[in-house]
């Protein structure tokens, strides 16, 4: 077997060598110690020495070529011996096994940071953030708080969003947490109501209120939603008469049990059932795929101090109207008390926002990514309506569905909204 001579390492820093000139030619006899060629390294021009006796059978590299270390240069062996064509770069000396450097850990996103178009992993879809006792504020103004104070606040359930820090630069420190009431916050940062009205003094100043955590997060997420999701809107006017009648019946009959169903409870239940019937709306856009959710986790918007939050009723499609009502009440209360756990306000697949009790006739809501739609519910209004060929007084409630056109087209959206309307106008169906 002929010996293949490779480009040798001639200096401690050499990586490539140039074969400047061959000192032997094919067919020449070669002895150990003979110089075969001149090689230029990064440091100098050196001579390539033969460690073998024999005949120079083949030259693989022309004079003037630059090759990496280990590249085959020539073959020395017995005359007539077979020479294998050289493979590309000879095997390098194995580097010692070293641990691959750990990839830098992606910073754990705070609850609020799920992107509008999540990567194709099971990302937990998170609507608006909750001011969980000690969140890491990712957006808006960074809160200055000492590590110890942060830890104490978490332990005590103190909301740091409203605390005024006594440390340097307004840093919240331990004593501030110890002085704060558990579960509540000071009133710093309450947005001024309109302008100061008629000021008593000659000077009227703007009141600049730093954005709190929750407001900042809401702002960020809604901008993302509005600018990145192609919204379109579908309205229906629902005849709320049958719904109100059934509600009154049930509430009267079950008054002693302390049951008080709200219109919104019916809407939640109807939404869940409609999602079951038109599952194409129970989806999420994921850039290269659409994720179909098997369950309808219906969230609903709750106004809280300085913001809003959307607690989730999981598996609403499996729950009875009564169960949904109870759960909605409990979640709503906890939401207002700022006691929701992250699992309770994340993971919704559809959202219902109801401003009816505030007297709004109709409105269009902004979709909570990664949901595909959001339902805006207006007030139930007594108005003239057409029945047969007559104009009578009727109860009408306007539903506006905002839809993500990437996932759901007009026809599908309309189908969903129709189903929803049917369920609300024949509310007995919701009792099944």
């Amino acid at each position, binding site marked *: 077997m002929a010996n293949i001579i490779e480009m*040798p*390492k*001639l*200096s*401690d820093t050499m990586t490539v060598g140039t074969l400047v000139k061959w000192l032997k030619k094919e067919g020449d006899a070669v002895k150990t110690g003979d110089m075969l060629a001149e090689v230029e390294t990064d440091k100098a021009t050196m001579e390539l020495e033969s*460690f073998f006796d024999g005949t120079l059978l083949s030259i693989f590299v022309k004079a003037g070529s630059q090759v990496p270390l*280990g590249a085959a240069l020539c073959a020395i062996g017995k005359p007539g011996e077979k020479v294998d064509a050289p493979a590309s770069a000879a095997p390098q000396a194995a580097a*010692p096994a*070293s641990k691959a450097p750990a990839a830098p850990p992606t910073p754990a996103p705070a609850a609020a940071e799920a992107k509008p178009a999540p990567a194709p992993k099971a990302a937990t879809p998170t609507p608006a953030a909750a001011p969980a006792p000690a969140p890491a504020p990712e957006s808006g103004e960074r809160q200055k708080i000492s590590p110890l104070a942060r830890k104490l606040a978490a332990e005590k359930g103190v909301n740091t969003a409203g605390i005024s820090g006594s440390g340097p630069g307004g840093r919240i420190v331990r004593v501030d947490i110890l002085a704060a009431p558990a579960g509540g916050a000071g009133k710093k940062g309450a947005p001024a109501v309109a302008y100061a009205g008629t000021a008593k003094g000659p000077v009227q100043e703007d009141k600049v209120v730093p954005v709190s955590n929750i407001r900042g997060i809401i702002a960020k997420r809604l901008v993302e939603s509005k600018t990145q999701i192609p919204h379109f809107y579908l309205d229906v006017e629902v005849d709320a008469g049958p719904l109100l009648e059934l509600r009154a019946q049930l509430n009267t009959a079950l008054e002693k049990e302390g049951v008080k169903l709200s219109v919104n409870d019916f809407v939640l239940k109807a939404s869940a059932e409609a999602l079951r019937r038109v599952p194409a709306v129970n989806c999420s856009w994921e850039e290269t795929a659409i994720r179909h959710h098997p369950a309808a986790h219906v969230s609903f918007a709750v106004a809280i101090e300085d913001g809003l939050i959307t607690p989730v009723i999981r598996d609403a499609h499996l729950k009875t109207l009564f169960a949904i009502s109870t759960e909605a009440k409990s979640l709503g209360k906890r939401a207002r008390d700022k006691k929701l756990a992250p699992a309770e306000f994340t993971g919704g697949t559809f959202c219902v926002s109801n401003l009816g009790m505030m007297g709004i006739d109709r409105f269009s809501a902004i979709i909570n990514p990664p949901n595909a739609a959001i339902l805006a519910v207006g007030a139930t209004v007594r108005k003239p309506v057409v029945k047969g060929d007559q104009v009578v007084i009727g109860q009408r409630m306007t539903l506006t569905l905002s839809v993500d056109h990437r996932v759901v087209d007009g026809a599908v959206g309309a189908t969903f909204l129709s189903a929803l309307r049917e369920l609300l106008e024949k509310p007995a169906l919701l009792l099944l």
Partner: protein
Amino acid sequence: MNASLSADQKIGLYRLMVRIRRFEERSLRAYQAKKIGGFLHLYIGQEAVAVGCCSLMGKDDHVITAYRDHGHAIAVGMELNPLMAELYGKVTGCSKGKGGSMHFFDPSRNYWGGHGIVGGQVPLGAGLAYGLKYKGLKGACMTFMGDGAVNQGAVHEAYNLAALWDLPVIFVIENNGYSMGTSQARSSAGDLARRAEGYGMAWGVCDGHDLYEVRAFMAPFLEKARQQCKPAVVEIRTYRYRGHSVADPDNTYRAKAEIEEYRRTKDPIQVFQNLLIAEKVLDEAAVEKIDAEARAEADVSADFAEASPFPTAADLQKDVYWESDNPSKRTSEGRLFFN
């Protein structure tokens, strides 16, 4: 000195020199094949110095040298496998892969390295001598250095201490004519060993190509050091055929003809071979056999090195502190490492 050697002993010395040369050649080939990283300083051409001096060692004599240490390591009797494995950076190396070419050690053979900083080992050598004297042992320390080291401050400090305190140390200057790429004439003022006179120390100069001559020259200095604790500075003139290290294109500072001349007329292996053949201790066949065996042994050591594993990350922090390597005997507390 040499007359008392038996035929076998003479053959043994000859074989040592051949083994050194074949080991060096094999390691050069391994370096060029990227099996060896960093520096490689070859002893080719200087074999008679290490073998000659180390062959005179008694049980309480010690040796320390600089980074051109492969010859001394083999001359004191270290096996080739762990040496080549050390060059390959394997955990079976004599320093567990942690030292490399410049740091061969074997305390069990009274061999204390293998040091990288020019002249840095010389005070250590004086210290070994100090330790011998302190313990009342009749031994001497041969402290080798190159012709380039003689101008280092630490070396002069060691000379002074040795002469002042009568330390049993022989400072051996292996003068191969070049301190890296700078000839003796261009680096050193005056004669090298003669500087000892300034310190009141004995000194001498000899040629290092004839093994017998090296032995005959060194023996009296060693004896004086052992028995009377008298230090000395000796210069042994030798030659290296290769560059300072394998990366050194030595054509910038010497002519090929010069190397060829040496090889032809003063090669220590050839010189000794001729002598032993004349003494009828060796014949052609024996010479061939010894050479073939040496080459084979060097190849085996390369195979051994190739097959051995590298140290792992877990090995990195061992052999740093005696205490962390002997945890059951640790008396200190707290953290020794700070990753």
